[in-house]
């Protein structure tokens, strides 16, 4: 991937421009001047400007991922804000929200400032999420108000569930003052116990301790009821079970401040893929069985699930190159996201391209309160240009993250990002 500063004037010629907000699609040219959209329409070729031929390519809002782990501060061997933003650009993402389970935890306004300041020169817009509880210990509330003032966009102890129902209730009540969502990693730790993969036929065969799906759904149910009780906003991350989808669907009919995401890997895989003890598929929540996977897809189709989020979780080779029980949980997902989602949801499940674009653009931006009116004159260009037809084999060389823990290596994907334009820079994938 190459990343260059945009020339003063750049003409994006002959693109299929899809605006997920206005639900429109047309062939058009877009003129960028100093990184901003100057003109949209049929623009005559001008000699003095850089032209990018976008014939046959789709141009739309840059993707937004509200759930990434950039490991900064503290674990620069896995990822940094810099390497994470390269990873995002490679996947067509121009805006991401970083989870606070760093070292130290992002549980105070100074840490929020650190991320915002360090991200300012980077080509991707990075929004920090603050922790719900101090040190993610699940006991005392973090300085949510000060973090909100410093620029936090949500609160989460992601990676660790808020086990204590009273703490969760108080956090939801408190967060109401700021209008920001709480994102709780829903998992009952007692029911999960030492579970390493989804509990079911495959875990029995492999002799791996099972993590039952009810460990998630019972906690999702608790959180939904607490959100309804308190009137707060709740966003449910990486939904993985059929019952979770069912409970979310039921609660959404009664209460409107619930949103939910699903990851590309939970859409792509089922637990049969763990047969070879592939540690790159060890993730929390675990890859579930095929019935759960079908329920997630159905949840997307009927609107129960609002958006796609990658849960991009970088780990070093030695974190993963070990026995399954000792391997760390998580996998990277930014670079492969679009190719996976397009393959599963469009090619196999028949969703339209614009519906898939919405899951990656206006839906996550709406949850996080980001600007969604991007294809407007005068707006900073925050765009992705992709070939939705290209079938390609995802390889390690396509990864810009510092870590390579992707189960998608050597998988055939459908749809490939060509250019990502953000903050006056243009990334060209190779």
């Amino acid at each position, binding site marked *: 991937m190459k990343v260059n500063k945009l020339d003063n004037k750049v003409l994006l010629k002959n693109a299929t421009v899809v605006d997920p907000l206005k639900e429109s699609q047309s062939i058009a040219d877009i003129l960028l001047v100093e990184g901003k959209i100057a003109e949209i329409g049929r623009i005559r070729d001008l000699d003095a400007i850089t032209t990018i031929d976008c014939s046959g390519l789709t141009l739309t809002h840059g993707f937004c991922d509200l759930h990434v782990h950039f490991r900064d501060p503290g674990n620069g061997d896995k990822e940094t804000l810099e390497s994470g933003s390269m990873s995002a650009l490679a996947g067509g993402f121009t805006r991401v929200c970083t989870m606070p389970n760093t070292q130290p935890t992002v549980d105070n306004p100074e840490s929020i400032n650190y991320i915002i300041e360090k991200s300012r020169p980077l080509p991707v817009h990075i929004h920090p999420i603050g922790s719900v509880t101090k040190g993610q210990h699940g006991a005392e509330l973090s300085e949510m108000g000060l973090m909100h003032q410093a620029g936090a966009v949500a609160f989460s102890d992601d990676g660790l569930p808020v086990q204590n129902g009273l703490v969760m209730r108080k956090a939801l009540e408190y967060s109401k003052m700021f209008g920001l969502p709480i994102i709780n990693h829903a998992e009952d730790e007692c029911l999960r116990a030492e579970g390493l993969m989804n509990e079911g036929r495959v875990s*029995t*065969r*492999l*002799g*791996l301790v099972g993590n039952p799906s009810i460990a998630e759904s019972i906690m999702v149910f608790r959180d939904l009821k607490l959100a309804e009780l308190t009137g707060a906003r709740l966003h449910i991350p990486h939904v993985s079970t059929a019952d979770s989808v069912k409970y979310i669907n039921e609660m959404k009919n009664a209460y409107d401040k619930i949103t939910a995401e699903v990851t590309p890997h939970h859409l792509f895989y089922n637990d049969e893929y763990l047969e070879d003890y592939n540690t790159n598929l060890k993730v929390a929540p675990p890859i579930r069985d095929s019935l759960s996977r079908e329920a997630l897809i159905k949840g997307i189709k009927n609107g129960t699930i609002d958006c796609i989020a990658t849960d991009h979780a970088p780990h070093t080779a030695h974190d993963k190159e*070990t*026995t399954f029980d*000792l391997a760390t949980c998580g996998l990277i997902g930014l670079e492969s996201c679009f190719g996976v989602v397009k393959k599963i949801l469009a090619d196999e499940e028949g969703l339209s391209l614009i519906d898939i674009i919405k899951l990656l653009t206006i839906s996550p931006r709406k949850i996080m309160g980001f600007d969604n009116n991007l294809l407007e004159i005068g707006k900073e260009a925050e765009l992705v240009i992709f070939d939705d037809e290209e079938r390609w084999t995802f390889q390690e060389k396509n990864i810009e993250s510092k870590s390579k823990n992707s189960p998608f290596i050597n998988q055939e994907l459908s749809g490939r990002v060509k250019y990502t334009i953000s903050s006056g820079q243009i990334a060209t994938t190779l």
Partner: protein
Amino acid sequence: MFDHKHFLGLENFPREDIQKIIDTAFEFKEVLNRPIKKVPSLQGVTIVNLFFENSTRTRISFELAQKRLSADTVNFSASTSSLKKGESFKDTAQNIEAMKIDAVVMRHPAPGSSKHLTEFIDAKVVNAGDGTHEHPTQAILDMMSIQEKFGKIKDLNIAIIGDINHSRVARSNMYGLISMGANVTVCGPANLIPENISDLGVKVNYDIDEVIEWADAVNILRIQRERMGIGLVPSNREYRRLFGVTSERINRRKKELAIMHPGPMNRGVEIDSEVADSDQAIILDQVLNGVASRMSILYLLLGVKDESANEG
């Protein structure tokens, strides 16, 4: 023709190859009954016994099998406490392989570890127990003992009794026995039998009396003390009352019954002393068959290939 590089487990292992291992094991058993119990089959072959988990009988059984085959053997034992990180497992394996060895026999507490080992090294790998996953050489010796007793395996009723959930012996036995055409029932506390176990083709019955009445052979698993600790089994006496193979239960039965146990036994808990020492017990035959079975497996993996291997 025996076309396997490794011996990792019996799931999806071809039935005819299981039979070949058993048949070859009977040939080696004859050797074990001779005054000079040694053959030169694996002369010049170096095998490392890599044991990351405590084991007495399995390690000795493998070592004897190797010595009987004239292989050179090295033993490596590492306590699990020194294995805080899995890297040392990879490093240990690669270091040992760098010294030019032909095969590794490994026991390790992590399910799938023998599969991982094949990714780290080029030598042949024999799984001597990977956590709660498989213990295929144990299942081979169990099946050999059943065949020795009954002259066949097909259509026999075999019960596996005990903690099925945490047992690699149970898993390998289920795969092997089903493949060989036996009827398998598992019996034990409901919280130690996975709900979906019947998907593997076995029946579940919590009533030990019915199971003993039905079975031609019972393979009794050791009930681990640590399971008592986390409250899965309330007490030894309750376990014995509900699932123990007691002399009363055996005496009530009219037909003969083969009593098996992979050892070590908790006499008075899962098996009564009278039962373990009775004529119906084939527990010590299992031990000798273990040496023969392991000779057979090592020979088939590492011995001179037959002529068909040279074709093309």
